[in-house]
Structures are given as C-alpha cells and as structure tokens.
C-alpha cells in the first residue's frame, strides 16, 4: 500500500493510513485511504459537526423556511453568513438566523416550553413565513427535549403552518456527513408525499444534491427547462418547503452531490420506485454526457444535442483561451467532499492543469474510490486533513494554487500560494458551461495575479525592474506562449456578465410552455367531459 506519512504526523500512528500517493499503475485495489472515521482529537482538523451538515449545508438553502435552531445561540450564529446559497425570493435564507436561545434554566428544567413559545413568537414576528424546520443541537439532544411532540402540538394549534424536525446534534458522527445523512432520511420520512405537485410536463425530475451556491442549481435548471423537463424540486438549493414535499412524484432523480444527498435518492427509489441518475454539472465533456443521459431517459436526445451544440460553440473558445494559459499549473483540489471526484480528472483534461493533491474533510471511502480512480498518477490523496499536514503538502508539492475554503485559503496566502474558494466560490456559479469558464477565469486571475508576483519581492535585497510601473496578468501569462499560441483565432477571455443568473428567473422556455399547455388542456378535458 503506497501510504504517505507526513513528517508532522509520524507521532500519531492513527494517521498512518489516511493519505496515499497514487503510484504508476496503481488503482483502487492498492491505493485507497481510510475515510470517515472518528477524528483524532487535537490535530486541528478541518472538520465541522453533524449539526452544520444538516442545518448549514442541506436544510438552510430551503428558501421560504424559518430555520430555527433549538439550542444556545452559537449554533445558529456561527453557521450564519458562511455560505453563498442564493435564491430567487430575495435571499430570505441568507438574511435570517433563528434560535430558541436556550439558557441554563432551560437546560435544567427542559426547554420544550421555550421551544413552543419561540415557534409561536417567531411565526408571529414573520407572518409571511409559514414553514419551519427545527434543528436539534448538542445541548437539546442531551437534555432530551421531544421536539417532534412540540412541533405536532404547534401545527395543530396554528393550523396553517408546517414544521419539519431535524434531529442531528453536532456530536452525531465524525463530521458534517453524519448530519447530511440524518436530514435526508428525516425529510423523506416526514415530508415527502405530504404535498401533491401540479404535473406540467411528460418529463418530471427532482434535481438532487445542489445547494444553489451562487446560482448553480438555477444554471442547471435552465438546461432542463430548455428540454421541456419540469423540475419538481431541487434538493435543496432555491427550493421551497412545499416543492420538496412533492419529490415522490418525479419520474427521475438527477443526483449531483452524491456525498450529501444520495441517501434521499436511494430512499425515493426504494419507497416510490423513482430511479436515480448520477450526473456531473461541472466540465464541458461531463456536462455533455450528463445532459445526454438525462435526455436519453426521456427520449429527448435531439433537444439535449441542441443545447450541447449551442453551449459548446458559445463557450469552448473561451475555455480554450484559459486552458492554454493554465497548462501544467499545479493545483491542490481540496474541497469538502464531492468535488474531489467531480473535478479530479475533468479539470486536468479540460484546463490542462495538474491535480497534485486531492483531499476531503468529510468524504467517505466511497468518495476516495471515485476520486482516486479519477485522478492521475502521483496525486496525493488525504482524508480528514489537518493544518500541519496541509502546510507540509503545500511545501512539498509547491502548487500554483489551492482550491479550498476561506480559512485554509488564508493559511496558503501567507506562504504566497493563492487560493480559490470552492465552497462558496469566488465569482461563480461554476456549474454549467459558462460556469466552467468562470472557474477557469478565476483560476487564471489568481495564478497570474500581479499582486502575488509583488508578494515575492524583498525590496531590501532584490533587484526590481525599474522601467515599468505595472504588469498586467496577460504580460505574465503570455511570456511562455508563442505569438501564434497567444493569438489563436476565435479564442478569447471570458465575455459573460458579472451576474449570469438573475436573468434566468424571467426567461421564457418554449419547450416547457408547450408541455404546460398540453397538460393544461388534458386537465381541462378531465374537468369538462366531452358531451
């Protein structure tokens, strides 16, 4: 087994099997780190808790819901303002954070009364919101409040509200992943099947495992709508509570982030017979394949091909412009979970970069199976990385950029390695064809930032060129290109808009309109039987 031992972790033998280097000719049978085991205390791991996996990752993107955390105030406060999951209803879910604010006396005597009063007061304070999720936290799990009973009581009393209960305390599992699992199952147990959708198309899907980071889900729905497919819900980005309660009526579950949302797809398959189709929304070729896969299920290949042709023609020249300049750049692909396998090979193939390391904070061994299988030789794969290991890896691998979260990005900054935020994104969305170009653009901008060149200069001893008061990115990136390479006919940098999502919200989709009209007609025929 080609396990990699970090010098900084030699003293903790428990870490021995958590990192591997994929050697020549090696595959999963010989090269797979352990995954999803309890964290070693004191390592300064990057992991969060199960509560945040449930509330912050999956629950909170639901856009018309009061996300009430039942516990002390910190759980809700600390997970507020940490993500960019937008919505088309003025970002209600970004603006508010709710808690019962449990105090000592509640811990001693129980906090169910406080919970009930808070639910009622909160609905009263924000009367336009009629849906609520209540999240258990460590404190209220330990004191044993019966949140389900309180929720049932309030629903009966108020009549017009619907409350979902999520029991995923922070300590429930090695990482956020424990919470992903719990909220998936709780949703399908409690809410799926309680509402009926209006079916408006012959082709009906749920788009699952997309949290609409900077508009990802809206970009994907644009493609589906162009094919005439009705999207009942996106689990959970930009979706309403009631939309997600109708998931049982879809013909197909199209699954993006299998790490966080495969559970609900599997349950929907078992309970309602809805098939699961895994896709990749990132990368041109993968997206081509993915759209075609969805189309083939419904017999919509021609429509998919039209989108694929249009999008590739529009955006490929821009991607190629960046790829030419990103060729050979070394990247550490250090996401939370699924992007390690979503991106590992396609970013190499389409942008020419070299993925020198992948890591995952909360991935399971299954994610490493997919990730290690997809990444190329020599890549260092790390499970549950910690601060020192990440630093050691950066010193050793000398990446040109790391793709990770905001805080580890600040660690990298100090050793003069730029970072790109791939949890919340720099300037996303990164999904879709245009999104992939935006990612390439952001990579290019970071790697060729004149500021990082300046950061390397020590004015006390280094010679500095005195003839020019600036360097543009282009002046740095194009020095290694021949004039022909630098000016390929048709290739050019990104020309899209700063905001490429908002306009989709008012877009008209003829294929979907046609489907709607057809179903409307059919419904009217049922209502007025022919004489």
């Amino acid at each position, binding site marked *: 087994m080609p396990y990699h031992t970090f010098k900084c972790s030699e003293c903790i033998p428990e870490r021995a099997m958590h990192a591997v280097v994929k050697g020549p000719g090696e595959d999963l049978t010989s090269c797979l780190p352990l995954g999803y085991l309890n964290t070693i205390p004191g390592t300064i791991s990057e*992991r969060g808790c199960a509560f*945040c996996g449930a509330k912050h990752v999956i629950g909170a993107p639901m856009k018309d819901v009061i996300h009430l955390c039942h516990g002390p105030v910190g759980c*809700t406060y600390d997970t507020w303002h940490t993500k960019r999951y937008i919505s088309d209803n003025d970002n209600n879910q970004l603006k508010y954070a709710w808690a019962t604010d449990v105090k000592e006396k509640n811990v001693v005597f129980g906090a169910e009364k406080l919970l009930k009063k808070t639910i009622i007061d909160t609905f009263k304070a924000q009367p336009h919101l009629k849906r609520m999720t209540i999240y258990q936290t460590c404190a209220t799990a330990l004191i044993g409040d019966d949140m389900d009973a309180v929720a049932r009581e309030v629903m009966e009393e108020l009549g017009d509200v619907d409350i979902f209960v999520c029991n995923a305390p922070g300590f429930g599992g090695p990482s956020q992943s424990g919470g992903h699992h719990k909220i998936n199952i709780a949703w399908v147990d409690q809410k799926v099947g309680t509402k009926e959708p209006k079916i408006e198309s012959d082709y009906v899907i749920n788009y699952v495992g997309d949290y609409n980071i900077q508009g990802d889900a809206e970009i994907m729905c644009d493609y589906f709508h162009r094919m005439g497919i009705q999207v009942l819900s996106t689990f959970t980005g930009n979706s309403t509570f009631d939309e997600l309660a109708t998931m049982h009526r879809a013909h197909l579950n199209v699954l993006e982030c299998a790490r966080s949302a495969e559970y609900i797809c599997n349950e929907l398959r078992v309970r309602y017979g809805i098939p699961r189709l895994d896709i990749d929304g990132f990368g041109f070729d993968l997206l081509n394949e993915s759209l075609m896969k969805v189309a083939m299920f419904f017999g919509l290949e021609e429509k998919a091909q039209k989108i694929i042709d249009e999008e590739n023609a529009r955006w490929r020249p821009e991607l190629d412009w960046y790829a030419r300049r990103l060729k050979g750049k070394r990247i550490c692909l250090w996401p939370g979970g699924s992007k390690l396998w979503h991106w590992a090979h396609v970013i190499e193939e389409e942008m020419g970069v070299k993925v020198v390391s992948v890591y995952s904070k909360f991935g399971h061994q299954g994610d490493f199976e997919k990730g290690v299988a997809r990444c190329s030789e020599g890549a260092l794969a790390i499970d549950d990385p910690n601060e020192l290991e990440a630093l050691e890896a950066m010193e050793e691998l000398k990446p040109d950029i790391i793709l990770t979260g905001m805080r580890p990005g600040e660690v990298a900054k100090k050793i003069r390695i730029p970072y790109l935020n791939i949890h919340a994104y720099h300037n996303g969305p990164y999904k879709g064809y245009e999104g992939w170009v935006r990612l390439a653009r952001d990579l290019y901008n970071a790697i060729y930032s004149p500021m990082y060149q300046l950061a390397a200069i020590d004015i006390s001893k280094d010679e500095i060129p005195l003839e020019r008061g600036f360097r543009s990115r282009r002046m740095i990136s194009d020095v290694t290109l021949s004039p022909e390479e630098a000016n390929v006919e048709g290739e050019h940098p990104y020309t899209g808009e700063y905001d490429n999502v908002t306009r989709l919200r008012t877009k008209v989709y003829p294929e979907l309109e046609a489907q709607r009209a057809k179903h409307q007609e059919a419904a009217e025929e049922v209502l007025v039987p022919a004489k």
Partner: protein
Amino acid sequence: MGDTKFCELKPKDRAGVINPIFTCQPAGAQYASIGVKDCTAIVHGGQGCVMFVRLLFGQQFKENFDIASSSLHEDGAVFGATKRVEDAVDVLLMRYPEVKVVPIITTCSTEIIGDDIDGVVTKLNKGLLKQKYAGREVHLIPMHTPSFTGSMITGYDLAVKDFVEHFAKKTEPNGKLNLLTGWVNPGDVTALKHLLAEMQVDATVLFEIENFDSPLMPDKSAVSHGDTTIEDLQGTANAIGTLALNRYEGAQAAQYLKSEFDVPAIIGPTPIGIRNTDIFLKNVSAMTGKPIPRSLVEERGRAVDAIVDLSHMFFADKKVAIYGNPDLVIGLAEFCLDMEMKPVLLLLGDDNPSYKNDPRIKALQENVDYKMEIITNADIMDLESRIKNKEVELDLILGHSKGRWTSIDNGVPMVRVGFPTFDRAGGYRHPVVGYAGAIWLAEQMANTIFTDMEYKRNKEWILNVW
C-alpha cells in the same frame, strides 16, 4: 431633563432569537485565547464549536488562527469524553513544540454531560506533563464556558480572568500599567499604545493583538497570532495599577488583581469619543503621575477640529441605532450625543442583569430628553421590526456585519463597527478608541451619510459647497 420616562431600559419581549447580536460563551474565550503567544486552545465539544468560530475570526481579520478541538463524537457524548481531552493535549503538544499555554474551553455539550475538566488537568499535570513532557513549560487552564450561560462577552471576560488568575505572580513591582483593552481590533491596540507612548507610560497590554493584522512576507515568515507572553501575564500582579477599559470585557480580571494583589483598578469608561478619551488619559495620569503632554493636546485638537466641521452642519439631531458589544454600544452612544446626534435605540445582545446598574445607562436615563430605548437580550430583529413598523425613523445604524441586510433592505445607511465586520474591507485596521478613533468614526459616519444622500438624491446638492 431628569424625567426618566424618555429612556426606557427593557428586555426583548419575544421568545427566542431572530438574527442574534452575539454568539455564545466559548467563542469569547477563544477570542481571548488567540491573543496569547504560544497558546493554542482546545475546545471541548463538537467540532463545529471550533470550526465556525475559526471561520468567524478568519472572516473578521482575513487571517487564520489555530484552535484545536477535542472532537466530541457520539460515544463521548454518551460515555463521557475526558479521554478525548487527554488525547487532544498530547497530540497538540507532540505536533506543536512551541505551544506552552493550552486553555481547555468547555461548551454546552461537555458541561451538560459533566466532564470534569479540572480533574483532567490535575491528572495531566501529575502524569503526562511530568513524564512525557518533563522539562517543557506547559500550562493547562480549564475555562468553563457553557454556551447556555452569558454570551461571547461573558466568555471573553471570564477567559481574561482565568488567564490572569492562572499566571499572575507577586514578585517585584514592575512600574507598569495593566491595560485590559476588552474585545478590540488591532487598530485599537495601536491607538491605545500610541496614547500611552505619548504619556511615556509603559504598559502590559492584554491582549497584544496588533499582529492580527500581519504582513504577507516574501520569506513566508509571518502568520497572525497574539503577542501577550506568559511573562506579561505573570507581571500583572506587579503593576502599579490596572485600567480595564470595558466594564463587561476584562473587569473581572482587574477586580481579581485588586483583591488578590492590591493592584489598584479603574474600570472604564471605554475611551470612545473625545470625552471618554479625556477621562482615560486623566486616569492614566492619576495612576502613573505622568502629565498629559502637549502633543496629545494637539492631537485632541485635531480631532475636535475635524468633528466641529461635521457636527452641527451634518450630525445634529440625526437619529442613530446602535447594536453590538455593550461597552462599545454605550461608548458610541455617548460619543453620538457629544456630536449632537440622537441615539434612539441601543441594542445589547444578552441578558446580563448588571446592565441596569451601569452608571452610564443610568446617566442616559436621567438626562436624555427625547424617546430612547435600550433593549437587553436584544436581537437584530428588534431593530428591523421597529424600522418596518415605523416605530423609529433612523438616519444611521452603527453595528457589525451581521445586521447588513437590515441596513440594505430598509435603506438605512450603516457604519460597520464592532465584531464581526466582514463585509467591508479593513475594518480591523481602524481604531474606534482614542482621538484617532474619534476622527475615524466621525468621518466614517459623515461619509456614509453623504453617500446615502447622493444615492437617494436627498439634499445631495448641499455638498456642492462645503
């Protein structure tokens, strides 16, 4: 005047919280811990209690700070998790040879399951530290900060006291002043140290956090960390006096030093604005016997000069709402009054019962001649709902970034001040204390109002001549 009905002090009248002003106790203790050199705290609880607090600090300073977790999982929650603290201490010490100070910060979960942290520390002191780490200076400091008590403010206050209580040791008088800054930014520490330097006063600053604003160095050598040393903390018992600038953030430590070592203490006022900075300097002068030099008279004059240009032309009678840390909120309100503004709504984010005895709040109640509300246990919804229901009409909000949408959605301009400020660049670099802070605050307020006037086309022409 003198009629108390104008200014009401009352708690929020809704159960639960919508948009909290503060986070919980462990975060406050963690903030204190990063101010100490060679110190890495272990938070005993779920991983989120650390992960997201580190992210919060990261967002505030755009820097990384190291804090460890005992990573409480299900088995620990059921069977007790003291072993995980032992493991965490060992793993941390093995891999971070420079670490000398390890606060062990509890959370709601580990307080409820009743893990005996003090017992663990005793056990480790007698065992692991004596054997495996013999010869290495290591201080384990238990800090009890259950999240269901107090707030991040009391957590900070408690941690400062715990640090001082652990280290302070009476030896020889050191002629220094203890300066307990409270929960401030690097820019504030710089401003305070500047004032003391002008007074030729040598001070032990708790905490030395100027380096939270650390450079990006060509040799990759810099990282952000606190610079208050063990020696600094030990020496607090030998000071000529303690100035705790904030009543709610650091005062406990000042009182401890007074009762335990007879170190004279002055608590407050928070030196925000001209008047409170004046009192601060007079207090420094009284404690050290050093005169206030002409240079500070000039510096003060520059601040007054700048504000006089703004106050009666632009600030007079402007209605302001202020939320955030209590000493900050009260200090800002006092400064606003001096600048002829009307702070109409003060929101204090926790239920500290001693607010009603705060002489500054009493003074507001006794002297304010217009309708003013001071809400305790408040949240940002208390602000938003009053704006939406037209119970207050505001010209300006002073508060931290968590209230950004209240400002954006209701069209009330807002100056970002306090913790956390993540939606404006460089907030941590600018002081709110001292004369420099007075200038920065006044000019930020003015420029924010000016921009709003232009954006709303509200007498924007007035600035055609100024």
